[in-house]
C-alpha cells in the first residue's frame, strides 16, 4: 500500500514537473523569448519543435541559399556573416543578425507562438510568411502539431495585389534634372490578364530613403554614410505614373521579367516580411536598385544577381544584369507628358501651334473666335495641346500635381467635350534605344596627341556617366555628366626649354554637369553647366590649378534635336601657384554647336573666352572641335583639335583616342 502510494506520488511529481516544463516552454514562446525556448528544448524531447529542429540540423538548412537570401546575410571581413537588414524587428533571435542557425531555430520556435510581436502585432507565422512557406517545403510541417494560423491581414494584402508576374520599372532621366540622370528602379507586381490600360492599377514595390525634410549637404552626407532608413513601400502604379511621367516628366521603361506566378508570390511574401523594417540606405551601394534585386533573389537563389556588383550600383546596371541573365521577356515604353507635348506639337501646323499657345497663355475665351473658324478636328487637336500645356505649367510652377482642375482647365475640357470628337491619342514614337542599350558608365581612353613641338600619350579614366562625344543610344543629346574624370599625359617628346618630368596631369574633374536642354516657345529652359576639379593651365601641362567654373545660358535645337547650339556666360574661380596671388577670378562668354548624325557619329565645336578680373595676361581661351565615331554601346574613336590660350601663350594641339566602356 505504501509502495503503491509512493509510486503514485513519484508519477504525480514527474507529471507535474513535465507539465511545468511544457508550461515554461509555452510561456517563453508566448513571451517572444524564442532563444530561451530553444535552449530549454532538451527538457521536452517529445515536443514537435525538437523534432523540427533535429531535422533542420540534419539538413543544415541555415546554410541553404534560400535561407541566406531571405535573411540577407552577407559575408563579413572577419569570416562570419551579417544580415544587411538593420531593423531589430526582423530577427527573432537576439543574435539573429549574425547567426543564421540561431535565427532558424528561433524562427521555428516562433511558429508555435500565437502571441503577436512588434511592430504590428502579427504572430511570427503571419509576419514571416516567406520563411514559413519555405521551411514548410523543406520540413513538411504536420498541421496537427504545428497548426497553420489564419493570417487575415496577409491574405487581404495578397488578394489585393493578385501576384502573377513582375516587371522592373525604370523611370529614365529627364535632362532638365541632372539629379535624375542615374534613374530609379522599382518593381511592379503584374496581375493575371493585365492589359495596357489595367497595368496602372497594379501595385508597385518601391525602395527609397526616408529622408524627411533633410536637404542639401546634410542630405548628401546622411545618404552616403547610411544615416537614412531605407524602406519598402507598396503603392499603386498609377501613383508612380503621376509622379514620374506627369510631374517629373520622365519617360518610363517597363521590363517584364521571366518569372513564374509561384516565384512572384514568394517575392511578395518576402516583401511582406520586409515592409515593417528597414535597411540603412547607402546611395552608392545599398540603394533602390540593389535592394530591388535583393528582394527578388530568394525566389531565384541560383541566379546570383546582387553578386555582380562591386563599388557601386547604378539603377540602369540592374537592367543590364537582368538582360544578361535572360530574365527580360518584354520591354514597354510609357512616354512622359513632355514627350506627349512634343509629339502633339509635331503633328500640328505652325498656325495651329501658335493658336494652341495663345489658348494656353491668354485663355479660351479670348481665342474662341479664332477657334470657331476652324473645323472641329483641328479645334480638338488645339484644345488637347492647350490642356497639356496647362497641366505641364501647373506642375512646373507649383511642384504639385493637383488632381483637381482650375476653372480655366475645366472650361477647356468642357469645350473639348462639346466638339464630340473621339479618337485615339497620337502615338508617341518609342526611342530607338532603351536605356540599358547604351554604353556603360565607366570609360577608359587611350590616345596619342601633340602640338608643334611636343608629343604625348594620354590615358584617361572616367567613373560615370556620359559625355558629349560618347555613343548616343540610350541617352539624350542635350546633357553630359561626369563624376571623376582623370586625364594623364606621358610626354614622349618635349618642347625646347621644357624642364618638367614626363608624366603630367591634364585634368582631374571631380564633378562636371552640362545641361543644354533647348529653349522654345513653351519650354523656357535655361541651360547651364558647372565643373569643379583640377586642370593644367600651361602649354606643357606642367602647372595645374584647382577651379570651380560654370554659368547659365540658352540653347536652341532643331525639332529633331540632331543639331543643338548653345551660348553661356561663365565665371571661374581658381586657385593655383601659377597664378598671381595664387588666385584667379575670371568670367566671359562661351558658345558651341553639337550635331548627332545617326547613331554613330557625333560632332562638337565649342569656344570660350575668360577675361581675368585683375590681370589681362591671365585671360584664358579655348576653341575646340571634336568628332567621334562609335559602335552602339562603344568603343568609340575620338579626334579632337584645340587652340588654347594658356597662362604662357597660345597652343594648337590635337588628340586621337580610343574609348572603351565598362
Amino acid at each position: 500500500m505504501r509502495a503503491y502510494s509512493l509510486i503514485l506520488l513519484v508519477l504525480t511529481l514527474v507529471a507535474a514537473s513535465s507539465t511545468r516544463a511544457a508550461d515554461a516552454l509555452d510561456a517563453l514562446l508566448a513571451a517572444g523569448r524564442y532563444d530561451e525556448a530553444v535552449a530549454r528544448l532538451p527538457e521536452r524531447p517529445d515536443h514537435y519543435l525538437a523534432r523540427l529542429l533535429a531535422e533542420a540540423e540534419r539538413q543544415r538548412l541555415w546554410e541553404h541559399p534560400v535561407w541566406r537570401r531571405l535573411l540577407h546575410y552577407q559575408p563579413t571581413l572577419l569570416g562570419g556573416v551579417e544580415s544587411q537588414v538593420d531593423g531589430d524587428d526582423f530577427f527573432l533571435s537576439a543574435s539573429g543578425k549574425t547567426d543564421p542557425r540561431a535565427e532558424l531555430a528561433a524562427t521555428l520556435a516562433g511558429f508555435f507562438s500565437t502571441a503577436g510581436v512588434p511592430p504590428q502585432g502579427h504572430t511570427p507565422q503571419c509576419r514571416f510568411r516567406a520563411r514559413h512557406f519555405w521551411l514548410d517545403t523543406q520540413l513538411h510541417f504536420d498541421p496537427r502539431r504545428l497548426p497553420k494560423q489564419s493570417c487575415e491581414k496577409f491574405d487581404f494584402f495578397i488578394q489585393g495585389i493578385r501576384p502573377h508576374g513582375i516587371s522592373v520599372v525604370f523611370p529614365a532621366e529627364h535632362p532638365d534634372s541632372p539629379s535624375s540622370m542615374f534613374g530609379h528602379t522599382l518593381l511592379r507586381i503584374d496581375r493575371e490578364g493585365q492589359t495596357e490600360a489595367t497595368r496602372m492599377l497594379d501595385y508597385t514595390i518601391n525602395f527609397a530613403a526616408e529622408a524627411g525634410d533633410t536637404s542639401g549637404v546634410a542630405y548628401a552626407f546622411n545618404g552616403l554614410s547610411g544615416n537614412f532608413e531605407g524602406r519598402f513601400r507598396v503603392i499603386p502604379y498609377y501613383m508612380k505614373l503621376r509622379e514620374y511621367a506627369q510631374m517629373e516628366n520622365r519617360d518610363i521603361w517597363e521590363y517584364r521579367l521571366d518569372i513564374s506566378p509561384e516565384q512572384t508570390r514568394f517575392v511578395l511574401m518576402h516583401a511582406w516580411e520586409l515592409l515593417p523594417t528597414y535597411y540603412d540606405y547607402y546611395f552608392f551601394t545599398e540603394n533602390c536598385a540593389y535592394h530591388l534585386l535583393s528582394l527578388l533573389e530568394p525566389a531565384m537563389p541560383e541566379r546570383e544577381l546582387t553578386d555582380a556588383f562591386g563599388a557601386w550600383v547604378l539603377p540602369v546596371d540592374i537592367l543590364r544584369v537582368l538582360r544578361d541573365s535572360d530574365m527580360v521577356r518584354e520591354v514597354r515604353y510609357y512616354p512622359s507628358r513632355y514627350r506627349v507635348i512634343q509629339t502633339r506639337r509635331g503633328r500640328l501646323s505652325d498656325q495651329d501651334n501658335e493658336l494652341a499657345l495663345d489658348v494656353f497663355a491668354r485663355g479660351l475665351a479670348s481665342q474662341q473666335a479664332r477657334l470657331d473658324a476652324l473645323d472641329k478636328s483641328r479645334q480638338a487637336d488645339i484644345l488637347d495641346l492647350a490642356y497639356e500645356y496647362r497641366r505641364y505649367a501647373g506642375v512646373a510652377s507649383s511642384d504639385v500635381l493637383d488632381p483637381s482642375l482650375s476653372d480655366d482647365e475645366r472650361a477647356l475640357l468642357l469645350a473639348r467635350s462639346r466638339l464630340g470628337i473621339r479618337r485615339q491619342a497620337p502615338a508617341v514614337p518609342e526611342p530607338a534605344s532603351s536605356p540599358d542599350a547604351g554604353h556603360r558608365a565607366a570609360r577608359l581612353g587611350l590616345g596619342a596627341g601633340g602640338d608643334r613641338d611636343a608629343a604625348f600619350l594620354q590615358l584617361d579614366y572616367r567613373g560615370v556617366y556620359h559625355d558629349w562625344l560618347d555613343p548616343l543610344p540610350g541617352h539624350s543629346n542635350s546633357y553630359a555628366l561626369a563624376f571623376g574624370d582623370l586625364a594623364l599625359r606621358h610626354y614622349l617628346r618635349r618642347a625646347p626649354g621644357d624642364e618638367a618630368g614626363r608624366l603630367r596631369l591634364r585634368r582631374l574633374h571631380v564633378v562636371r554637369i552640362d545641361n543644354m536642354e533647348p529653349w522654345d516657345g513653351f519650354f523656357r529652359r535655361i541651360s547651364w553647366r558647372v565643373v569643379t576639379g583640377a586642370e593644367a593651365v600651361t602649354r606643357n601641362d606642367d602647372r595645374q590649378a584647382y577651379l570651380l567654373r560654370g554659368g547659365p545660358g540658352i540653347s536652341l535645337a532643331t525639332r529633331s534635336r540632331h543639331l543643338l547650339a548653345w551660348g553661356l556666360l561663365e565665371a571661374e574661380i581658381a586657385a593655383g601657384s601659377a597664378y598671381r596671388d595664387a588666385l584667379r577670378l575670371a568670367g566671359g562668354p562661351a558658345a558651341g554647336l553639337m550635331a548627332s548624325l545617326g547613331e554613330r557619329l557625333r560632332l562638337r565645336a565649342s569656344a570660350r573666352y575668360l577675361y581675368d578680373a585683375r590681370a589681362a595676361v591671365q585671360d584664358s581661351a579655348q576653341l575646340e572641335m571634336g568628332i567621334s565615331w562609335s559602335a552602339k554601346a562603344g568603343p568609340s574613336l575620338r579626334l579632337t583639335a584645340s587652340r588654347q590660350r594658356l597662362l604662357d601663350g597660345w597652343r594648337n594641339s590635337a588628340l586621337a583616342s580610343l574609348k572603351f566602356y565598362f
Partner: protein
Amino acid sequence: MKSKISMAVLATVIGCAAPQAFAGEQGAGCGIGKVIMEGKSDQGANIVASILNDILIPRTLFMTTASSMDAPVLGCDPTQTVMQDVEKASFVAANLDNLSQEMAQGQGVHLEALAAVMGIDSADRPAFFAMTQQEYATLLPAGDARASDVLASLDAAMLRHAELAKYTR
C-alpha cells in the same frame, strides 16, 4: 536658381533617391491621401492630402493627420496601403485630372482602367466612353469634384443608358 543648381549638383550623387530628396515628403500620414500626394512637399499638397484622407474610409488613417511638415512617416503601418475595397474611389480621387481630360476626349488609358475597375465588358466600353464625353458637363460639374460625387453621377448617367444600366447597382 543658384540653390537649385547646387542642389542638383549635390543630388547627382543620389541616383534613385533623388525624387524623395526634392520632395521631402512628410505629413498627412501614410493613408491613401499621403500616398496620392507622394513626391510632393508643398503645404497646399498636405491640405489636399488631408481632404482626400477624409473622402475615403477613416481606417486608412494610421496616424494623426498632421498638417505640419515634420510629422514622421515612421509609426504608420506600411502594409496597409493595399486597399482593394476602396480601389475604385482611390483611383478616381487620385486621377481626377486625367479622367476629366479623357472623358472630355471620349477615350484614354485612365478611362479604360476605370472601365476595368467598374467591371464593364470590353464590348460595352465604346458606349461607356462615348457617354462620358456626352454627359461631361453633368459628370464633372466642378473642377474639384469629389470622387464619390463623380462615381454617383456616373451611376446615374449609366442608368439612363440602355446598354450600361446593367452595371449600376
